[in-house]
C-alpha cells in the first residue's frame, strides 16, 4: 500500500537551514555599517579620476574596509541567490548547475576584487 507520506519520506529538511539563516543575518549586520561607508567612499573615489581612486584604495583604512565590504557582500549575495534558485528552479539538473555556478561566480568575483585591492594597496601605497 502506498500512502502520500511514503513518497516524501527521506526528502525532508537537510537540517542546515538555521546555519544559512544566521549567516545571512550576520553578514547583513556587518553590511548595515559597511554599505553606507562604501556608498560615500565610492562616490568620492569615482569623482577623483584614475589617480585619485588609486590613492583612495591605497589608504590602509579604505583597503581594509573595502576587503571587509567585499567579503561580507559577496557571501551575503551567494546565500541570497542560493535561496532564489532553490525557490524558482524546480528541475533538479538545472538547479544543481545554477547553485554551483552561483558558488563559482561569487567566489571568482571575491578573489578578483580582493586581489585588485591588495595589488593597489601594495603598489600605489606609500
Amino acid at each position: 500500500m502506498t500512502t502520500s507520506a511514503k513518497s516524501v519520506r527521506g526528502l525532508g529538511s537537510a537540517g542546515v537551514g538555521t546555519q544559512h539563516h544566521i549567516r545571512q543575518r550576520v553578514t547583513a549586520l556587518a553590511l548595515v555599517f559597511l554599505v553606507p561607508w562604501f556608498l560615500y567612499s565610492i562616490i568620492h573615489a569615482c569623482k577623483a579620476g584614475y589617480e585619485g581612486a588609486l590613492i583612495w584604495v591605497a589608504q590602509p583604512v579604505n583597503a581594509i574596509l573595502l576587503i571587509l565590504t567585499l567579503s561580507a557582500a559577496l557571501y551575503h549575495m551567494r546565500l541570497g541567490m542560493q535561496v532564489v534558485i532553490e525557490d524558482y528552479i524546480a528541475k533538479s539538473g538545472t538547479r544543481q548547475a545554477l547553485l554551483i555556478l552561483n558558488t563559482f561566480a561569487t567566489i571568482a568575483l571575491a578573489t578578483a576584487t580582493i586581489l585588485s585591492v591588495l595589488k593597489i594597496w601594495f603598489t600605489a601605497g606609500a
Partner: protein
Amino acid sequence: MAGPGGADPRPLSPHLQIWKWHWTMAGSIFHRVSGVGLYGGAFLIGAWLIALATGPEAYAFIEGIAFSLPGQILLFLWSMAVLYHLANGLRHLIWDGPMVGFKPGVASLWSMFNFAFAIIGAAAIWSLASFY
C-alpha cells in the same frame, strides 16, 4: 504538488494574480528583486575595481561606460536598490532581533517609508554628489 503516488486533492495556495497588492507584499517582493539586481550590480562595481588595478586604459574604458547616460541611469537605479535593500534589510534584522513592527498598520507604514527612503535617499545622494 502531485507526487509519484498520484495527485493530492488538497487546495493550492492562491497565486500571485489573484492577490490584492498591498504595501508589505510589494515591500517583500521588491526586497528580493533589488537583491537580484544588486547581485548583477556587484559584478559591475567589481569590474570598476579590477579595471582600477589593471591600469589607466582599462580604467578609462570603465569610466567611459559609467559616465555615459545609460551608465548613469544604471548607477542611479543601483544606488536606489542599495538603499532599499539596506532599509528593508534593517527591518528584517529588527523583526528577527527585538521582534517589533509586526502590527499591520506599522508594517505597511514601514514599507512605505522604505520605498520613500530609497527614492528620496538616492535623489539626495546624487544631487549632493554633483555639488562636491
